[in-house]
């Protein structure tokens, strides 16, 4: 015979303040747990979306990012001749030779701070190689001119990046003629201009930072890589899938957030479990006579055990749901942080995934079970006579 669920909910209501305090404690823990996972997921999502499956990127071997990579013109010419590179209708290989530099821009919100922004010199192919590049304001820059377009999150975060503004670098002034939206990926945190113009301004004569290449098909990578690695003139370079490259860029930051997050969460959850345990022990000792009565009425020990476990679980699940609900609002916030992989700032948002929801709920249930288990055992073990006699 089960103890009615109504009995449990009534108990929660009777000791309102204690219940609320415990629920709030658990919801805070779940909030932090979910927020940390969402942050790490947000960074990874932003960077992984940045790459495309059919593209490969060529960098200098030891380079951890485009900014520390140099590819000489003659090497770039050799790369062009490797088979399995897709061809454009004009017969040219589908490659974008790009240069990347970092410039400083003042933040629009934080006073006095300067942020690192990636400036990318692209070729017409560079636009075709990337999906989701949409103009969101103004127009594209004219080839051969000192004009630039800015990513959507640059506009939000940095001063003087509106249409028509001029930015000074590389011994010249560059006019912002448009802004683009790359669908929330890493390019939204970049400034783009004509490769030839930017190479001149930054003194990258006869060299590039990276080559972005479209292959014939997704499966051609191994073939391409073999041919690439065999060529003695390309020994100082390496080729990677574009997706893999961006994934690696996010690794360090995401790992840091996870390690810190997990350490903090473990500690937090211990605190919350202790909170739940205190509440439940108190519930048991307050209700000794009640428990005795229930047992005398014929409820079994395990009924009492379950009733108390369910009580503890309801508290923690309720708290967990509140925490998750609050954390889901974080998705509306964009944050930006330096990405140690590329040394430039990357804008991303907290991102909730089904696995984060499931993990948070599992975590909540575990907290409730662990916190409620010992007190429930005590409740179920109470001796009927002693319990009834207690005052």
């Amino acid at each position, binding site marked *: 015979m089960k103890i009615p669920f109504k009995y449990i909910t009534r108990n929660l209501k009777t000791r309102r*303040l*204690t219940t609320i*305090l*415990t629920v*709030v*404690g658990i919801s*805070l*823990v779940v*909030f932090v747990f979910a*927020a940390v996972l969402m942050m790490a997921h947000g960074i990874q999502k932003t960077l992984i979306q940045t790459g495309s499956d059919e593209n490969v990127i060529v960098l*200098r*071997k*030891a380079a*951890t990012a485009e*900014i*520390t*990579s*140099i590819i000489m013109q003659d090497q770039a010419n050799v790369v062009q001749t490797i088979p399995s590179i897709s061809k454009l209708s004009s017969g040219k290989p589908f490659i974008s030779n790009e240069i990347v*530099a*970092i*410039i*400083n821009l003042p933040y629009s919100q*934080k006073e*006095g*701070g*300067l*942020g*690192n922004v990636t400036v990318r010199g692209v070729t017409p192919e560079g636009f075709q190689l990337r999906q989701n590049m949409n103009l969101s304001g103004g127009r594209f820059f004219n080839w051969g001119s000192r004009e630039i377009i800015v990513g959507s999150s640059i506009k939000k975060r940095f001063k003087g990046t509106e249409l028509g503004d001029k930015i*000074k*670098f590389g*011994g010249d002034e560059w006019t912002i003629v448009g802004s683009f939206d790359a669908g929330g990926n890493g390019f939204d945190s970049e400034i783009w201009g004509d490769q030839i113009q930017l190479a001149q301004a*930054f*003194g990258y*004569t006869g060299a590039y930072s990276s080559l972005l290449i479209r292959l014939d098909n997704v499966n051609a990578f191994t073939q391409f890589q073999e041919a690439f690695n065999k060529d003695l003139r390309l020994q*100082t370079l390496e080729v990677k899938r574009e997706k893999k490259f961006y994934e690696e860029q996010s690794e*360090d930051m995401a*790992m*840091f*957030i996870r*390690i*810190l997050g997990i*350490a*903090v969460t473990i*500690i*937090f959850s*211990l*605190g*919350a479990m*202790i*909170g739940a*345990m*205190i*509440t439940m*022990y*108190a519930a048991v000792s*307050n209700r000794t006579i009640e428990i005795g009565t229930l047992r005398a009425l014929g409820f079994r020990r395990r009924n009492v055990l379950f009733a108390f476990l369910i009580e503890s679980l309801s508290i923690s699940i309720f708290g967990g749901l509140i925490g998750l609900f609050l954390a889901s609002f974080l998705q509306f916030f964009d944050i*930006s*942080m*330096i990405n140690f992989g590329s040394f430039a*700032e990357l804008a991303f948002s907290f991102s909730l995934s089904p696995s984060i929801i499931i993990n948070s709920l599992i975590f909540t249930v575990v907290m409730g079970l662990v916190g409620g288990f010992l007190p429930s055992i005590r409740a179920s073990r109470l001796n009927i006579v002693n319990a009834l006699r207690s005052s």
Partner: protein
Amino acid sequence: MHIIKLIVKNMLRHKLRTLLTVLGIAIAVVAFGLLRTVVTAWYAGVDASSANRLITRHSVSFIFPLPLAYKDRISKIDGIDNVTYANWFGGVYIDKKQFFARLAVDAETFFDVYPELMIPKEQLEAFKRERNSCVIGEQLVQRYNLKIGDIMPIEGDIYPGRWEFVIRGIYKPRDKTTDPSNMLIQWQYLEERMKEETPSRAGYVGWYIAQIKDPNNSAFISGQIDEQFKNSPAETKSETERAFQQSFMASVSAIITAMDVMSFVIIGIILLVLGNTMVMSARERVREYAVLKTLGFSTFHLIGLIGGESLTIAITGGIIGIGLAFPMIDGFAAILPKGWFPIFNLEPITLLLASISALMVGFLAAVFPIQRATSTKIVDGLRQVG
């Protein structure tokens, strides 16, 4: 004296509950200490910066080099004692996961401007003499089990090619905030190789560091330096070392804000745990408080009784927490990838903050129960069934 005895007796009434509460507070103090330590580790660079050093770099970004010729022009400016320069050398040691700064520095002057890097005289002489030598920090010696005379091979990225450096010196950090994990190589050696391999890149340095006589003049002197190079192909931006380091902090401010928020949340959680305990105790004891009042104990006594219990629990938890924080933080430092935080210490200020928070929580947790105990009428209290 009676009050103290009562407090202790009350605490021991529910031994398990008191124990759990103390534990809860201890855990929260550990978490607080951990988060603050991470925050202070981020700020280590700012704390280590000296007020009498100015950094001059390219106005567009630190990734663009400045001509070597600027050195003489900077050193001629009034109020500047000493000028040195450095380059970010980068490269890969062993694999891409080994984080530590690899800098090419002017062997002649660098250690004069950075007195906090303490190096024996004969080692410094050896470094100046030998072209392909390097000086490394103490922490690298331990991390990679190196000694003087060993060779550190580096695969260059910004400066392509394979480089081999012989360790000729090991520096010790003077202060707790000095980075003990730098690798310094000779800029002159880099320059020679650049002249041979890519002459277009020779004759450049990354940034200048000027030592000034009077820190109060820093704004004026930086202005003068930048004025010198105005409208030249490489304009400069000069600022104090502190401001320079702080600009890096701006780019990680999101994570620092997150940790700040979390440390407050933790205090909130301690408050909830302890508050919960106190609320429960007070609820159970409503009748006793009424009896005490009937016997003539004043409101003041009740405040002492409840507040004292709450504070004693908070303080005990706080002390245990601080004791646990030391091994926990060492453990955390061990899980982190090597080199993420060259400086990772539990600062005295962190301990102080943790103690103050524990005390405050002790006070706050008692407010509600005290209010309830003192406002309940004796008659109602006696009538109450727990």
